């Protein structure tokens, strides 16, 4: 089938069987490798994208179900000249180590701050509890996002 999506503000098309995951379509067909395959079971959040306003694991979305959707991936959150505020916050705080979980955290955090510009620490922790980081122990990510929340308050 011909899949049509609006991704990061652009109309994109891909020829798919339909049973692939949205993650596969993004990475393999549309040259958007920022979303990461780490568990492909919806447990780790590394492939998080914003799909029609909801943060979802793109590995759990069947391509055919995404027909006509509006998708934001990590590639759509910043450009060469400026970082998204959550990216700035994580960079400054040292919330990046190996970097494999990082795009998923960025997208999930961007979605959280879009909905709630000044979340509490508990809200940050709960909202990002679907994103697993094996390197940082979450401390630096939390400090970065807490600082951003305070800035926005």
């Amino acid at each position, binding site marked *: 089938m011909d899949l049509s999506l609006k991704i990061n503000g652009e109309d994109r098309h891909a020829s798919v069987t339909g049973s692939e995951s949205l993650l596969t379509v993004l990475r393999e067909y549309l040259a958007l490798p920022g979303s990461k395959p*780490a568990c492909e079971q919806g447990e780790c959040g590394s492939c998080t994208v914003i799909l029609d306003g909801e943060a979802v694991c793109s590995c759990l979305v069947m391509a055919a179900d995404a027909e006509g959707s509006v998708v934001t991936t990590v590639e759509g959150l910043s450009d060469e000249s400026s970082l998204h505020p959550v990216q700035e916050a994580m960079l400054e705080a*040292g919330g990046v180590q190996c970097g494999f979980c990082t795009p998923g955290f960025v997208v999930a955090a961007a979605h959280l701050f879009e909905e709630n510009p000044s979340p509490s620490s*508990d809200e940050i922790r709960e909202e990002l509890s679907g994103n697993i980081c094996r390197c940082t122990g979450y401390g*630096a990510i939390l400090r970065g996002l807490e600082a951003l929340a305070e800035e926005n308050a």
Partner: protein
Amino acid sequence: MTTDQRVKGGIGESTIRPDGVAKLQGDFAFLNDLFAEGMLHGATLRSPYAKARIVRLDIAPALAMPGVHAVLTHDDVPGDKTFGLVDADQPVLAHEITNYWGEPVAIVAADDPETARRAVAAIDVEFEELEPLIDSEEAVAAGEVFREMDLRSGDQELRGEVVVEGYYETAMQDQAPLGTEAGLAIPDGEGGVDLYAPTQWVHADHEQILPCLGLEPDQLRVHPGGLGGAFGSREDISLQIHACLLALRTGRPVKFHYDRGESFIGHVHRHPSRMWYRHEADAEGNLVRVEAKLILDGGAYASTTGPVLANATYFAVGPYKVPSVAIHGFGTRTNNPPCGAMRGFGAVQSCFGSEAQMDKLAAALEMDPMELRRKNMLVQGDHMPTSGQRFDRPLPTDKVIEELLAMPLPPALDSDDPRHLPGGTGLTTERSSVKRGVGYALGLKNLMFSEGFDDSTEVRMILNPAGAEIHAASVECGQGMINAMQQVGRTVLGLSHVAWVFDDTSLIGSAGSTSASRQTPMTGGAVYAACVGLRDKVLEQWDGDDLSDDGVHKDGELVATLDQVCADGPVEFLATYRHPPTSPPDENFHGDVHVDFGIAGHRAVVDVDEELGLVRVISVDTVQDVGKVLNPTSVVGQMEGGTMQGVGLAVMEEIVLRDGKMLNANFTDYLLPTFLDAPTVDMVLLEEEGGFGPFGAKGIAESPTISSTPAIVAAIRNATGKPLTRVPVRPEDIVGL
């Protein structure tokens, strides 16, 4: 020499890591993002049994499939048929017998991953399942051991008045890096191959892969790639040889990318352990004798079981003086999945047993557990009770204890918010049913390789008009090594612009492994030496006394710009760094076997719902000697991240095996700590002078994972009164089912 502390981005600053922006934007190329024109995709047929005989293996049906370009078995391996990091005992592809669940039997290259997987399924293979050896005690009885260490020190007749005994177990833990194994082999068209490998040590990969391919050394070039974490899991070969074999056979690039399930079986794990301990002390609480039997199950192949067992054995009594020691360690060979390196590397297992014993002994003596530790602690100038070697360098155990006890405790539970309660938003626990516990542990571990290993790191510094470049083959797993090395380079050279360049195995000598807390001292030592050499060379050539971004100075006057300095081309200096030598152990396992040590302590606070067996780890605070902080943010990140892996082993992480097969090789069933499981981690960093690393810096990444686990379990014991002799502590262990 003098160093220029005025340069921006030098040591001691929390400089921003150079790969940070790319990782945040999704632009950083991990190995599974790599692409080459015309590349094929690899897949692996693996044994479904813990032990089996291969009765029939017919690749014809797979080869006949459209889109399949090669199917290889044991017979197709042109060179050595086995490989291994320490002993080459592991078949590249199994021959006649498979020795563990998931052992590779055949490999396929096809146009796309789906075709490759279907081709694997199409291989006509018949196994005859054989009786596996899966019990490590039975393996000891049967003599199936990779290494045995019967270590005795001191007067073996000494006995104490107060005796405690205990039996402890630690589970098999997975490193669970978020990036799974991936790699790309690209044939060079002249019979050779370039490999982008999921590795922590490109030269060790080169050494293991080459004999299997039957190539000349310069025909194989191993390049590091974007890993997505490691924690020990990439010390051993996974897909490297398979990818090269298929690329050389097909003449096309071949990419492998393991999914999470294959990753679980595609790399080694932390050895599960069984430990029997007997501690004896006099009535005043002075340790007199420690006896222990340690069994660490190495699984089907040797990997690093030898050195892991050595660590468990040498550190079996912790950082305490003991006049009489008898430690009998076994690293067993079974049909369980192979075990090898994971953060802490053997010290984790025996620390859990020995620290539990210290608490038990304190209770028997009616002493405060930390007072018992203080009374027996090892410090600089003391001798290690096991190997007998003297602690020549600082060992601030006293300060670790003092600072740990002085750290403020977290406030009492004053919330009914389920996010603050055991069980979390499952709404299982009420505040009234929560009991709080506090526990402590200390951990001692060797830093860098031990037992006489000739360890070296090569670094080439290159000065050009834009600044300096560090060339090395040291692998960045994500921990921030490159950032710290650039800081060392800037400080020593006095230049603002210091870039990092990865060299492959053909361009530079070995950097050694990114493991064993060794890259900060080793690559750091080599960067330091190469920068000193480069700076001295340039200053001597221009008769200068200072180097800075604009050039060479003498008496405050510029005598040559960097353009002039590099007029005849870049200026280079190559340094090979070796740490002070160690010795192989003698027949009693005595000697100066370790070059340096890490000492740390943890204090854990937990809330427990005893009725449901649920635990929430509130805080895990820590004190550690780090020598010198090169980058505060990176140090904190290593301490917090390492501590969290200790939290995982304490209360949730376990590869569950039945008959040698993994039952939970996925992230749904293998539990990892999430944001809501994360305790606060406050820390005191001790900077003891006298270390030999660059500016006195030590490798720091393993200590956080060693004493965190026993501290948490001590806290749960404190809350519940239960003995809790096994990690991870499961709900049924607390409830008593």
